[in-house]
């Protein structure tokens, strides 16, 4: 029973970590997009 519980806990921790990493990567991608778009906007408005 203890082995089963440990296995369930390990799986739960791994799945949660995988999800959190995926969400963090998505947020990072959005941050990079916003940064790049800011440069595009700045260049367009300054006529470069």
């Amino acid at each position, binding site marked *: 029973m203890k082995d089963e*519980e440990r296995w369930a*806990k390990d799986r739960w921790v791994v799945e949660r970590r*995988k999800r959190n990493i*995926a969400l963090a990567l998505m947020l990072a991608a959005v941050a990079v*997009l916003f940064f790049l*778009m800011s440069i*595009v906007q700045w260049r367009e408005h300054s006529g470069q």
Partner: protein
Amino acid sequence: MSLSLTYPRVTTVGDFLALLKPRVMSLVVFTGLAGIVAAPGSLHPLTAFTALLCIAVAAGASGCLNMAYDSDIDGLMTRTARRPIPMGHIAREDALIFGWTLSIGAVATMGLFVNFMAAGLLAFTVFFYVVVYTLWLKRRTAQNIVIGGLAGALPPAIGWAAVTGDLSLAPLLLVAIIFIWTPPHFWALALWRSEDYARAGVPMLPVVKGKPYTRLQIILYTLVLVPLGMAPAALGIGGALYLAAAAGIGLWFLWEAISVYRETDEIKEPAAHRLFGVSLLYLTALFAALIAEKLIGLPALAL
């Protein structure tokens, strides 16, 4: 205590992606791309990507909110019973927060980095799909998908507005094509899913008016759609490739609509299945031809 209670199932990224209705999203992105490509003028590639991303995210968020508000009836229908909320993979409240956050984020990003016209149209699309269609029309009238179809029809206009900052007859014609295409497409599905809709209490046309009336309406809408689908060639938006696709697959669409009208197998509805497939092919082919002509540089006809 059971293990499943000690360590409940983790809501995965896949669950959140499933809430965004990826297949619907892909068609919306495709028609939005056609609007961007067909519009006169140019857009920085990264701005075009951002506009498409906003359209995709807003479409997904609308689907997510639709699933959240309809979670009570989704569990009653075979087609929707395996969605994340009725399956218990995601809480309805979490889906609502997720959907509204993405909607507001997509509209704000469109306004910040593209233009306010495109952002306004995007906000209107989300509002129309979630409030007008999902919360108001869907459970009240058999005309639900006729009126509600406007939301799914708007992406080409949003794409066009992202480039030009305004609207004209050309993008509205593309909107009109999807608007008229929507009823026969969904009524074909409703013909073989009518028991599902009846069980959930959704007043789809076959449930309220019966199958013969629905078959007649499918024919009538298709008779309007086929010439309307060819109209972009007359207005200088589409070229020979577009006209060939619109005429050829349009006639195939009409042929299948006639088959649906003459269908005798009311249990399996094979003609309705075929019409559903051809309707997807029709819309994809029309917009693919439009995009291909612009990318290759084929001239528009302007008959």
